[in-house]
């Protein structure tokens, strides 16, 4: 069964092209198109409905201990009001999901997971929690908006104070509605994510869109933006067959502590995630074999035309950490298209 987010009627009214994504009806784009939406986020501001994301809560004396055991990152020194990325692994080092953790209080954490993995994640977490911890899937209690782009602070700042640091959050109100606002996002741009009650979501959505500097954006732009910023996406750059180190998430994996999957990760012959700028004619998408001097070295995990960089790019999982400048080929429906290994991320915002 496909669910509607609290903003479904808004998407229809805005003539969004609705698709079924991770079990939710969501707009892939609005009439202006993916490129316009993508550029709005790079140059001004865009508003996304990300209410499909899952949220779970860990509360109690052993909450921290559990997160540190179930997730690859170490949350011991995560301050209240700060956010930290992490991965959840199987024993063999493959990924269950990637997620972000908010520290609400000393013994209380709010964890945001991928919509498509929510049920699997909740089952895995339940199976592995121990000790004194209250665990709850609170996804249905929250809607989520993402306001992203260089002007997002000016726009949101009209309503509320803002979390000042990247990966920090505050609990506040916007026009009388209780919200959590974090300086986070999935676009590689300055921006905020706003968690609110589902019934308040349409009001906040429409209020923010009254500002002429912001346009609504769909899943299409969300994907091109994250790809341009070279952020991994579960099901593409990682899945149950790929370890977080293979996909280049070393910063979120702390091998000096005990956690599920540590031995599995360590035992793997590591592959590497590389960036490829397509220099031949064509678009290289996911699941294309990649060749070096005629030898297959791996496959692409994501790829398309990137609107801000104005070119075709792809990410690939390959057998070695090839140097930037290495010329490779991708097999696109039987046609070999040339590309060059390029430093990741493809796009990095100016400070």
């Amino acid at each position, binding site marked *: 069964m496909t669910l509607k987010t609290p903003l479904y009627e808004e998407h229809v009214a805005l003539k969004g092209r609705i698709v079924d994504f991770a079990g939710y009806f969501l707009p892939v*784009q609005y009439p202006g198109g993916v*490129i316009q939406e993508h550029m709005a986020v790079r140059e001004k501001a865009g508003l996304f409905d990300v209410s499909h994301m899952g949220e779970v809560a860990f509360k109690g004396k052993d909450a921290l201990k559990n997160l540190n055991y179930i997730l690859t990152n170490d949350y011991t020194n995560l301050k209240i009001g700060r956010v930290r990325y992490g991965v959840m692994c199987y024993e063999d080092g493959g990924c269950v999901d990637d997620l972000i953790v908010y520290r609400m209080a000393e013994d209380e954490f709010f964890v945001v997971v991928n919509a498509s993995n929510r049920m699997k994640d909740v089952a895995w977490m339940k199976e592995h929690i121990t000790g004194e911890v209250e665990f709850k899937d609170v996804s249905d209690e929250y809607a989520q908006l993402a306001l992203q782009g260089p002007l997002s602070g000016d726009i949101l700042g009209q309503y509320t104070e803002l979390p000042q640091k990247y990966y920090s959050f505050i609990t506040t109100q916007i026009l009388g509605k209780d919200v959590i606002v974090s300086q986070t996002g999935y676009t590689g741009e300055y921006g905020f994510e706003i968690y609110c009650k589902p019934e308040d979501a349409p009001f906040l959505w429409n209020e923010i869109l009254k500002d002429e500097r912001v346009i609504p954006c769909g899943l*299409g732009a969300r994907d*091109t933006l994250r790809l341009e910023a070279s952020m991994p996406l579960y099901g593409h750059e990682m899945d149950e067959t790929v370890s977080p180190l293979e996909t280049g998430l070393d910063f979120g994996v702390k091998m000096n502590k005990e956690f599920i999957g540590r031995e599995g990760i360590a035992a793997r012959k590591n592959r590497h995630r590389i960036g490829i700028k397509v220099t031949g004619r064509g*678009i290289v998408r996911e699941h294309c074999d990649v060749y070096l001097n005629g030898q297959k070295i791996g496959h692409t995990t994501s790829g*398309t*035309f990137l*609107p801000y960089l104005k070119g*075709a790019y792809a990410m690939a999982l390959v057998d070695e950490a090839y140097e930037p400048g290495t010329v490779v080929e991708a097999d696109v429906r039987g046609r070999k298209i040339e590309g060059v290994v390029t430093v990741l991320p493809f796009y990095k915002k100016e400070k």
Partner: protein
Amino acid sequence: MNTPKELKYSKTHEWVRFTSDTECEVGLTDFAQDALGDLVFVNLPEEGAEAVKDETICDVESVKAVSDVYSPVSGTVCAVNEELLDSPELINNDPYGAWLFKLKDVSDAEDLLDAEAYEKVCEEEEH
């Protein structure tokens, strides 16, 4: 949706503009460009290539996906619109101006739809 009356159409969303009894231009309809979204790459056929009705002749790519273009009639490719190689967005901006290729020695044109019949095909696909 814009569906000019003077053109002929295929069920696979190509338009055909006859410039003589045996020559025509082929492009993608407004419905097709809207469904595809922003086009970012066009792979055109070779001049001189044989076009066979209902068979893939080239492809176009949007941000989201690659789509095959089918030849709506049979014939021989006598020109391709090279302007589209650098500016695929012309298909979005002006679908009936942005022809993809021209055919000569055209045959198998009996099944082409008029604008009214084509609009019905589009309506059915929308539901």
